[in-house]
């Protein structure tokens, strides 16, 4: 134990004197202050970049979400092609934003800033894979996604006179979606596909549910195989995925068993009431 326990009570030399003395010893030209000014700049620069990435990522999220809403309308319009073309245009704009992310990340360790833009990228994966499914009835691969995230930039004159093999004035910038972000985006896609399944039934389309069911089952089986070996977020989404798959499988069951008995315009109601009554744990594979 200390001989003189530090005492706080009854301290007449109050804080004002203490602060004065403190500042007196903080010589503005002291080496410690000088070095902390450098730290200040370093931290500010990093935080500024992080914030810029957050802002771009938010734009990516919003536009990707709007594209998804747009794509849902294909089940209720006669000419799906217009919608698909519009979605292409929107996603091109999103890709340009991702190009801005790639620029910010140039020369950086992407994992230092990953949290800033992961949400936006997952949303983009969801949107682009949704469009791909509607067109091709298959799952877009990570390679295909990354192949479209290659950007050409006209380079300003390089003052260091680098001896790169690239022609003067051009530079290739790439953005790589990580396998983890890809998986998480695809997991979210299954939720949209489940919605699409329910709404397509309501529109009298009784083929789509069965196609979707098969497709979702394959995705689900893929995720099950990964199980808990992937990132933690994937395990969480696996649970939601099972629910989505369950709803779709129940929709197919109901169609198979009772589809012919129910007027088409009431089919959707049957599914929504049946699926919401169902305990999420039941009907899970």
């Amino acid at each position: 134990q200390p001989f003189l326990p530090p005492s706080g009570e009854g301290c007449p030399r109050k804080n004002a004197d203490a602060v004065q003395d403190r500042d007196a010893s903080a010589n503005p030209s002291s080496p410690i202050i000088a070095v902390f000014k450098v730290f200040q700049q370093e931290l500010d620069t990093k935080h500024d970049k992080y914030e810029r990435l957050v802002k771009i990522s938010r734009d990516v999220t919003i536009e990707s979400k709007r594209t998804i809403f747009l794509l849902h309308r294909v089940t209720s319009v006669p000419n799906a092609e217009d919608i698909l073309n519009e979605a292409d245009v929107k996603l091109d704009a999103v890709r340009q934003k991702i190009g801005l992310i790639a620029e910010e990340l140039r020369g950086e360790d992407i994992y230092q800033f990953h949290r800033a833009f992961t949400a936006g990228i997952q949303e983009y994966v969801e949107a682009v894979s949704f469009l791909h499914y509607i067109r091709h009835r298959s799952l877009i691969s990570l390679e295909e996604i990354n192949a479209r995230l290659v950007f050409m930039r006209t380079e300003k004159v390089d003052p260091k006179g680098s001896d790169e093999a690239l022609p003067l004035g051009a530079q290739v910038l790439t953005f790589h979606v990580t396998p983890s972000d890809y998986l998480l985006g695809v997991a979210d896609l299954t939720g949209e596909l489940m919605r699409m399944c329910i709404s397509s039934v309501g529109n009298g389309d009784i083929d789509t549910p069965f196609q979707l069911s098969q497709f979702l089952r394959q995705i689900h089986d893929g995720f099950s195989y990964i199980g808990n070996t992937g990132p933690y977020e994937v395990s969480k989404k696996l649970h939601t995925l099972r629910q989505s798959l369950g709803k779709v499988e129940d929709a197919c069951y109901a169609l198979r068993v009772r589809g012919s008995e129910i007027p088409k315009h009431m089919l959707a109601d049957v599914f929504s009431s049946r699926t919401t009554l169902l305990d999420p744990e039941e009907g899970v594979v």
Partner: protein
Amino acid sequence: HHFSPDIRKVVQILEQNAREILTVLQSVHQPSGFKEIPSKCARARELFCTVRTQLADLKTKFPVEQYYRFHEHWRFVLQRLAFLSAFVVYLESETLVTREEVAQILGIEVVREKGFHLDVEDYLAGVLIMASELSRLAVNSVTAGDYSRPLRISNFINELDSGFRLLNLKNDPLRKRYDGLKYDVKKIEEVVYDLSIRGLAKEPESGVDK
């Protein structure tokens, strides 16, 4: 490829190394320990050799460009090692170790592009851990009969505090750790106050103009 298991094995060894160094340095808080500060610092420096070897090994366990992907694995122990480096240097010279010096002691880089490096925030966290250790040392100095050391520690910590005030911190772990600095400052001020009202404190050689 799973890098984490190999990384974790080396980190565990590093944590053990850090505990050994801390054990050596902790003893300066005992009254008898004060006289032995130089030899304890020398011993600690010897133990840092092992740390350098381990960190050199750690570098090989993952792709060099993915430092921040795995940073969380070693963040804690690297901050401890930064603290221990700062503590040794303070005991030796009563100055603030620079980031470059810490990197040298640990055998790592300062600049990310050059390889496995010491992130500025991990360096700062280490400095803040040292501040707590110094507030404890101020108290125990008095117990051991050294009445001038607390004044020097007080000036040093106040300067650190002024430095940290320049930083624009986000609401992250570093900021929370910085929030603890004011308690260290206060504790040391109280020690200094106790000494001064009892007439036990002399102005330190590198005096402050009042």
